[in-house]
């Protein structure tokens, strides 16, 4: 049984990664991820973990370094945020195409401009199609659990894909939370050694990341798409195993009071816990409200989403990013697309909330429920609104 402790979540994530027998990390510090970089660097410098910490001059270099290291068969880790993730963007599809099981924490933060260091999901959303497995943490405990699980998922022989763990910047990274940190023995038992599918080594030369023309590019993209889709089975197995070992279960879509709910709200990340309190308030007032939390963003959990919302009359999708001039927030458009063919789908509403760190309190989530309940003719369904914007 792990030790219960109070710890800042970013530091705890670095501690958890330190338990995972990593061979190298290349992390360029950026707010609000910096404490992960700093603490991991401390663990290496203090000799607490036997790993190389490669100091790089940018996030582009950090991702390049972990790609190279992973290619040699090293268990490789990085972490970033916002502009850093945007700078890595060019390399993300390369890491997944080369099937390198890198893991990365993203301390989610708004993308410039204007410059803003606070939390939203505008950094991860542009990486949607990079071919990475993407999961979202709701609290500090989930952040450390998902960070450890990420290695096992990524390195599974049937997956071999990079994984990013999304951890809301400040709202999670800078919180001091009571956490249960697995012991070294528990992690050793859970996480097998990394067996790469190929390694860069002079004894057996290989080429990774070779050129491909139109005669092969389509087949390569198809193989990658199948790999990302097929990773779900392993993700479910790993979460199942984690539940048995640690008593904390993880699902692609998690629900709260959703079974008999007439109206549901969907969140991703840390705002789920606040929205949950609003659900309780509405339940106290006799409203059959419920919550759906999307943990697995890629591969997208189509059957689980359909099952979670099938009995609801109305569904409010919250988005923490904007698709400018598009069909609504990125989560909203995917949920709508997932439910399009279902004849009995709920009326779907979209609120874009919490941009650039703007707080969304319990009463505001309650307000969203009330506003949608009041729209008896579903007039505002299939549209999006910037919640709380000053007119």
């Amino acid at each position, binding site marked *: 049984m792990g030790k219960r402790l109070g710890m800042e979540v970013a530091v705890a994530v670095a501690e958890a990664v330190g338990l995972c027998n990593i061979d190298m990390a290349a992390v360029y510090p950026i707010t609000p991820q910096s404490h992960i970089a700093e603490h991991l660097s401390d663990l290496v410098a203090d000799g607490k973990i036997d790993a190389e910490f490669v100091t790089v001059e940018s996030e582009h270099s950090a991702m390049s370094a972990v790609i190279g290291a992973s290619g040699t068969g090293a268990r490789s880790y990085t972490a970033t945020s916002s502009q850093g993730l945007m700078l890595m963007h060019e390399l993300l599809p390369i890491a997944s195409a080369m099937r390198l099981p890198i893991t990365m924490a993203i301390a989610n933060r708004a993308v410039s401009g204007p410059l803003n260091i606070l939390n939203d999901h505008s950094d991860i959303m542009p990486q949607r199609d990079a071919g990475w497995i993407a999961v979202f943490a709701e609290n500090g405990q989930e952040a450390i659990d998902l960070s450890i699980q990420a290695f096992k998922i990524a390195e599974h022989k049937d997956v071999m894909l990079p994984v990013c763990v999304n951890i809301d910047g400040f709202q999670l990274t800078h919180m001091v939370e009571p956490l249960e940190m697995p012991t070294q023995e528990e992690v050793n038992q859970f996480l097998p050694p990394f067996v790469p*599918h*190929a390694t860069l080594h002079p004894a057996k030369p*290989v080429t990774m990341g070779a050129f491909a023309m139109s005669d092969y590019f389509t*087949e390569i993209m198809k193989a990658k798409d199948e790999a990302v889709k097929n990773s779900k089975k392993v993700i479910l197995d790993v979460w199942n195993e984690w539940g048995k070992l640690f008593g904390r279960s993880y699902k692609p879509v998690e629900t709260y009071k959703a079974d008999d709910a007439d109206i549901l709200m969907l969140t991703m990340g840390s705002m789920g816990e606040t929205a949950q309190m609003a659900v309780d308030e509405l339940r106290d007032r006799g409203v059959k409200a419920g919550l759906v939390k999307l943990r697995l963003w890629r591969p997208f959990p189509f059957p689980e989403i359909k099952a979670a919302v099938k009995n609801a009359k109305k569904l409010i999708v919250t988005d923490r990013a904007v698709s400018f001039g598009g069909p609504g927030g990125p989560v909203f458009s995917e949920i709508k697309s997932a439910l399009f063919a279902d004849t009995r789908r709920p009326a779907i509403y979209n609120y874009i909330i919490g941009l650039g760190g703007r707080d969304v309190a319990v009463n505001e989530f309650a307000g969203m429920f009330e506003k949608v309940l009041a729209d008896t003719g579903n007039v505002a369904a299939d549209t999006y609104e910037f919640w709380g914007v000053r007119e």
Partner: protein
Amino acid sequence: MTLKSWKELPIGCVVSEPGSASEYHTGSWRAQRPIWNNDKCIKCGICYVFCPEGCVQQSEDGFFKANMDYCKGCGICAHECWPRAITIVEEG
């Protein structure tokens, strides 16, 4: 070369055989081809030196020719050939 299906691709498209790029015949890209006039050729080898593909070879008689499996028909040999022994003609 038989093209593989998506199911047959090695994971991450790792190329495990060194030198296998030679199996890819870039000559299929060619729209034009070089023709040597050995009456004008002085065997200086500048075509051999400048060929970016490395596909110009010297024959036993000292004259040069291109390996058409790899010649892309770029015309650099003809451009560099100062005795003007190489002309570029349309394929087909």
